[in-house]
């Protein structure tokens, strides 16, 4: 009996830990899932052996323990074998990003109040929309967490001060003036995020490189304000040939002149969504309760006899 209960508890506690501390690579490792499967099989086989020569109440308790542990084990192994690795979903304001197995994440436009939290919404068939804001949310077998990251909001004007359309032919949203800075480039030993955009009216292609406040303070000289992020703009013609006098640094959101354009880059925070798979919480909860109830039932039964 002790082996039966011990293995059941090991399986259940293991999967509960997997749910409470999600996203560890070990959960997807072969040895972990083989061990979990073997232990669940041991529980069921031992449960069958314990079944014989028992009272009806004890049998019910044994069934609860075996079934609960097997259910929790199944949820854990399914998560380990089938669930994808952790993912970071990056979306531009206004973009709707489809996430396999999950649904569509809708990234809102930032409001006028830049300090207000941005709430990303998960849309799924047969479910109410799920808002992912400051705290993590659970959606079926996934935990969704909003993680802030730096993006650059650009504004472009011609030399007369007329606003110009910004396009991102290679970005998620064609007409977005918000650069997600997902690519990286090494400059002077620093690995820096960069992005590019087009200004079709001026026939210009602009590359923007983001310097964090610390990087800006260490490496850049001149207009960089202390403690402020900075954006380096490099303007090319539409064939991506460099132009003379076409590199300028915009610090603290200041407008700079480069390649016959006025460019302004404001560094703001916008969330990406971290998607972490977990064992199905409903199954794990029911399984753990069954195991707990069964163990308590067997304990009471033993004490009374």
């Amino acid at each position, binding site marked *: 009996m002790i082996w039966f209960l011990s293995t059941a508890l090991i399986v259940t506690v293991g999967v509960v830990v997997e749910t409470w501390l999600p996203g560890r690579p070990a959960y997807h490792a072969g040895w972990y899932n083989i061990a979990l499967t073997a232990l669940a099989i041991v529980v069921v086989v031992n449960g069958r052996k314990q079944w014989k020569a028992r009272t009806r109440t004890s049998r019910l308790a044994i069934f609860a323990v075996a079934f609960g542990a097997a259910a929790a084990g*199944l949820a854990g192994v399914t998560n380990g074998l089938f669930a994808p690795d952790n993912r970071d979903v990056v979306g531009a304001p206004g973009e*709707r990003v*489809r996430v396999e197995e999950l649904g569509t994440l809708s990234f809102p436009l930032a409001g006028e109040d830049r300090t207000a939290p941005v709430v990303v919404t998960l849309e799924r068939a047969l479910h109410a929309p799920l808002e992912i804001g400051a705290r993590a949310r659970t959606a079926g077998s996934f935990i969704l967490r909003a993680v802030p990251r730096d993006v650059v909001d650009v504004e472009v004007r011609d030399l007369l*001060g*007329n606003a110009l359309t910004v396009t991102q032919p290679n970005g998620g949203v064609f007409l977005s003036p918000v650069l997600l800075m997902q690519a990286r480039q090494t400059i002077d030993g620093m690995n820096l995020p960069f992005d590019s955009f087009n200004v079709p009216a001026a026939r210009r292609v602009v590359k923007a490189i983001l310097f964090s406040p610390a990087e800006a303070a260490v490496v850049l000289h001149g207009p960089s304000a202390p403690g402020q992020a900075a954006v380096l703009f490099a303007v090319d013609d539409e064939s991506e040939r460099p132009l003379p006098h076409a590199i300028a640094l915009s610090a603290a959101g200041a407008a700079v002149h480069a390649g016959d354009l006025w460019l302004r880059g404001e560094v703001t925070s916008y969330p990406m969504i971290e998607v972490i798979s977990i064992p199905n919480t409903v199954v794990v909860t029911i399984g753990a309760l069954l195991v707990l109830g069964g163990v308590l039932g067997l304990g009471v039964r033993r004490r009374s006899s």
Partner: protein
Amino acid sequence: MHRYIVWPAVALALALAIYVAEPYVVTQRAAAGGPGGLAGQPAPIFDLRDDRGRSVSLRAYRGSLVVMNLWASWCPPCRAEMPDLQRLSQAEAGRGIKVVGVNEGESPQRARAFADSLGIRFPIWVDGGQQYGRTYNALGLPTTVILDREGVVIRAFDGPLTLDEMRAAVAAVRVR
């Protein structure tokens, strides 16, 4: 007793396995990409200004079918399409259909000069933050979106339309 519990337990275990594995094998239906992805949803409403600086909003167009055309002055197909939009606007004005041109990302002066050069009479709005272009997930310009009387997106088109295509799209929405 034993056999009475084994088969239900096996059935329960199978159901459980299907329930647990379902999220990983059944993929969610993909929303259509591009501007058509918003079909069936209420159009976003942004408070904008027109090319003369007046406050404008889609709220004022409730009760009318709206043909919303996103454009920019640097876009040759937008220029080519504009006269047909003007003809549509004139022809359908008495039938509760409103045409609105939404300039994406340019200054009011540039938008007004462009509209004046083509003799455009329908309202020209200026979307400096390119908000409609972003939320409609425009793949390029021009993009045309048709809204019903309740402000719900019915259809959306990527690229320029001919006058006949505009009339057909509006007629299809009108009979709904």
